[in-house]
């Protein structure tokens, strides 16, 4: 694959609005997971809620898009000058040549969940104020972001559960390689809602405590919310020393079960190998893996086996961790959020330790970091393995 430049990127999650706050949280190994006090939820669980989302006001011409998810998108886009950088890109290439590919799992569905509590007593009709296309529908996220950022090229939402906003990097890469566009905004936004909280709870996949990925006593996920974006372009000949590149994308399906991963991580292994091959590197070139690491017994076990198999023949065990103990599992936003965390790791030489994890199984076949480590790194792998068996692995790297 021809490398693409991450011209700019930003992330907002429960560990911070924008890059500076996020880095500070990573440095101090702060977790943003708190007992759930969201909306009318009575479940005993911890969540990664972003503070102040409901105080955000959308531009007045875009009121039809008003919902928690789009407010979080607005908050996210406003960080780190992202809107301005995209505007300059759109000015350079022309709007039609800038694509938009975003991931989400529930979009603005919370609005419909609330509206079902307000149905007309006689007719059962939903309140007139519910704008389905502007909020609930999965594409509303892209429709809204398109208006704010001014992109005018091909647009789509990828909604493949937890791999959604990793897969968008692949869609953008192919569209650029095909010559249809010259740049693309990619990213993901997912926000707390009743469907995912009660739904994952019904599958007994949610922990009561803050999740502890890869811990021997792990017992489930903590749901989080986030907005993360990146601007991708063809890499120019001369790059800044802190430039981050997308080097490889690998995708696969488990074909195993709708809500459990393949026990040996068969699909995960295939996605990782494909990403390495696309990047033209071997497993020995990877300095750090940001694991999918949700904290469920089955995911971490399956992913652990897959990583051990792919990274077996190395002089030095590969360092790896999940950041979901800090941010929670941000579902459709996880791929993009964790890609941004990987970009920060590359730029800062900071390998994040896994918050809340105390004791990992041994031997794992790789070195699971419970504490931060600082060293210059050049190549990282980011895993996102979705519910329903859709897997995606990304290789990111510093320019050499």
């Amino acid at each position, binding site marked *: 694959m021809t490398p693409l430049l991450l011209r700019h990127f930003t992330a907002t999650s429960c560990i911070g609005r924008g890059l500076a706050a996020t880095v500070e949280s990573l440095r101090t190994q702060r977790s943003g997971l708190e007992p759930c006090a969201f909306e009318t939820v009575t479940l005993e669980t911890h969540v990664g809620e972003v503070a102040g989302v409901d105080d955000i006001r959308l531009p007045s011409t875009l009121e039809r898009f008003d919902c928690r998810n789009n407010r979080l998108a607005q908050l996210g886009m406003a960080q780190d000058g992202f809107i301005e950088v995209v505007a300059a890109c759109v000015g350079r290439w022309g709007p039609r040549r800038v694509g938009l590919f975003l991931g989400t799992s529930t979009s603005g569905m919370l609005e419909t969940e609330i509206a079902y509590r307000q149905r007309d007593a006689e007719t059962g*009709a939903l309140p007139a104020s519910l704008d389905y296309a502007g909020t609930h*529908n*999965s594409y509303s996220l892209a429709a809204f972001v398109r208006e704010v950022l001014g992109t005018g090229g091909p647009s*789509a939402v990828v909604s*493949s559960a937890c791999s959604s906003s990793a897969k968008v990097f692949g869609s953008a890469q*192919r569209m650029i390689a*095909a010559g249809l566009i010259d740049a693309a905004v990619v990213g993901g936004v997912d926000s707390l809602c009743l469907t995912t909280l009660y739904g994952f709870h019904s599958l007994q996949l949610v922990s009561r405590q803050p999740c502890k990925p890869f811990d021997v006593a792990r017992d489930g996920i903590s749901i989080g919310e986030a907005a993360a974006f990146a601007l991708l372009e063809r890499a120019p000949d001369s790059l800044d020393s802190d430039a981050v590149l997308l080097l490889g994308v690998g995708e696969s399906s488990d074909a195993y079960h709708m809500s459990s991963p393949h026990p040996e991580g068969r699909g995960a292994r295939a996605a990782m190998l494909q990403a390495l091959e696309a990047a033209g590197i071997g497993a020995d070139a990877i300095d750090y893996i940001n694991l999918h690491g949700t904290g469920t017994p089955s995911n971490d076990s399956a992913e652990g086996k897959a990583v051990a198999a792919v990274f077996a023949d190395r002089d030095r065990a590969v360092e790896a961790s999940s950041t979901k103990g800090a941010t929670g599992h941000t579902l459709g936003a996880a791929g993009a959020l964790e890609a941004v965390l990987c970009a920060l790791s590359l730029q800062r030489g900071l390998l994040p330790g896994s918050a809340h994890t105390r004791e990992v199984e041994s031997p794992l076949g790789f070195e699971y970091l419970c504490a931060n480590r600082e060293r210059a790194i050049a190549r990282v792998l980011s895993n996102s393995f979705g519910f329903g068996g859709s897997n995606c692995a990304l290789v990111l790297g510093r320019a050499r």
Partner: protein
Amino acid sequence: MLTAYIQGIGLIGPGLPDWPGAARAIAGEEAYMARPTVVPVPEGLPPAERRRIGATVKLAVSVAQQAVCAAGVDPRRLPAVFSSSGADGLICHEICETLASSDRQVSPTRFHNSVHNAAAGYWSLATGATAASTSLCAYDASFGAGLLEALALATVDRTPVMLSAYETPYPEPLLSKRPQPDSFAVAFVLTPAAPPNAHARLTASLCSSAAGADRLSEPQLETLRRAVPAARSLPLLRLLARRESGNVVLDYLDEQCLTVEVSECR
């Protein structure tokens, strides 16, 4: 340039049971008789899974199986693009009703069947497909988004790919918020190199929507084209059904259309 060959076609819609059964009506060679869409049960799923899947998954997987069967290819290594403006509407309604009630115990099966990528998940279970799949949404532009994604995969990754674009209506009260007359789905198997059984070669590009998309002269089919996102494919299907070469313009995003150049191979 986005180019690929169509190797197999699937179609399920109102009075349109499959491609061979529907082609003459779509070509305008015989009268179109609208009847409620009949959604078949897909092959290859174990009985328990067959019982659990909703109408949307049945439709998306069945139409994909029609295309793959017509193409005569092995689905296991075939990347798949699923595209729809919504997920299972009935399941969504049931979950929202449950969440609005005093007992919020959502059924776990309903929950994992409510996700937008349920069709892709069950497709892989039914066929054993371990190749990559994606699940897209672009609201009314979902067919165009799916076609572009599939063509980009075929062109850039030099791989055959399956596209399944499908729609099923919500029940009330959401139906009033998102009206739709009936279920409709279309599927293609696309390949980058010309296979012996190719229907036609497609080349897609973007254009402004000033001229507007092609319309169908049969009023009920034209209504379908305007009302159901996956049915925006109908002008292309008409050309394919007539076995003619030419250009069609399809509705895509608000300010953009898709131009598809069709070169007949049969």
